[in-house]
């Protein structure tokens, strides 16, 4: 018998049997305990690889172009941060950098570092620390919010000038559901067991 603890209320219970594709919830507080999927590692690894590629595209290319009387500007994420810095807003600039670039990048990179070896059945140094940091970055990675921000900004600019969606916008649109699926699908308990060499 394995015992599992609920992360939110600290109740300890026997690990319930969960059929493939199902999920278990805490009997006391109702929080999600874990999801089971026989291919969780494979699926998540594939999703994270896709996310990494899309993340690079999303950051290299402009997501929005703005044209007024023949003058055109376009912007990438990093450009936005630079523009804030130029106006002396260090705090806001670092917050945007942290939440829209650095945290998602770290989350994706660390997941690759952990899931790659787990998938191939290897062990690499610092896996436990890397996987620990994934959880730490998660609340600070807000790309889906940024996407809504692009729409709102687009609407605000629409009657002032011509708005052209850029390549990065499509990359963002794909990246967000993929990353969300990866973190929902991931059976963290299984990954921890693999890291510890238990399973």
């Amino acid at each position, binding site marked *: 018998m394995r*015992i*599992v*603890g609920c*992360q*939110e*209320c*600290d*109740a*300890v*219970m*026997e690990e319930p049997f969960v059929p493939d594709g199902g999920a278990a919830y805490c*009997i*006391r*507080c*109702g929080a999600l305990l874990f999801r089971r999927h026989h291919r969780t590692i494979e699926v998540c690894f594939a999703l994270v690889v896709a996310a990494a590629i899309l993340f690079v595209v999303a950051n290299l290319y402009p997501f*929005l172009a*703005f044209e*007024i009387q023949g*003058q055109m*500007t376009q*912007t990438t994420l990093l*450009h*936005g*941060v630079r*523009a*804030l810095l130029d106006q002396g*807003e260090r*705090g*806001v600039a670092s*917050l*945007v950098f942290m*939440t*829209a670039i650095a945290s998602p990048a770290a989350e994706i990179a660390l997941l690759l570092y952990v899931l790659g070896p787990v998938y191939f059945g290897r062990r690499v140094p610092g896996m*436990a*620390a890397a*996987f*620990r940091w994934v*959880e730490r970055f998660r*609340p*600070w990675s*807000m790309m889906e*919010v*940024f996407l*809504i*921000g*692009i*729409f*709102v*900004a687009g*609407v*605000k*600019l*629409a*009657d*002032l*000038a011509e708005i052209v969606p850029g390549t990065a916008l499509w990359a963002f649109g794909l990246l967000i559901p993929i990353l969300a699926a990866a973190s929902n699908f991931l059976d*963290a*308990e299984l990954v*921890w067991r693999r*890291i510890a060499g238990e399973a």
Partner: protein
Amino acid sequence: MANRSLVDWPHVQCHVCRIVMRAPQREGGGALGCPRCGAIVHRRKPESLSRTMAFLIAATICYFPANFYPVMESTSLGRAQEDTILTGIVYLAESGMWPLAAIVFIASIVVPIAKIVSLLGLVLSVRWRSRWRPRDRAATYRIVGLVGRWSMVDVYVVTILVALVHMGTLANVEVRFGAVFFAAVVVLTILAAESFDPRLIWDALEEGNGRERARAS
């Protein structure tokens, strides 16, 4: 509701990898490292209530300048206009974008207040050892964690506008310091939510059960 913990030995659970282990005999005596993931193990998040309260008070203080001061100034054909969070929403609504206006209104104005009030309620309920509807309180905490991040929308909008619109007198957007307070509210409420330990909600119930058990024996 009964305490349905399966084990009767005192346990601690790692906050990071969730492994359950037997609690060390003595409290204190240095930090305990998790045998599986290496994180420092605490029975409950340290100083959870005071930290949460501190972040909540700071967030409340920042909330007023965040909404009162303009977050940006836009110049269009020589005409300058300062926008607060609220006038930005009114603008969206007036241009007929009701769904977006509603999203931004909820994300920027309703969510921060709702977050501060719910976390304050949770902190007080724990401090008063309340046994009232723990399941609903736990769900409240879960929802706070999910919706809080959406307040960042306005910070991103300002960032994008500043990055795109810099054409001198033709069209220009600059940040105003309301944005700094607004960003501070978002960060502080996230920190407050992260500091709160939802396990505390259940401790009052376990104490109660312990007492009943003691009386029964």
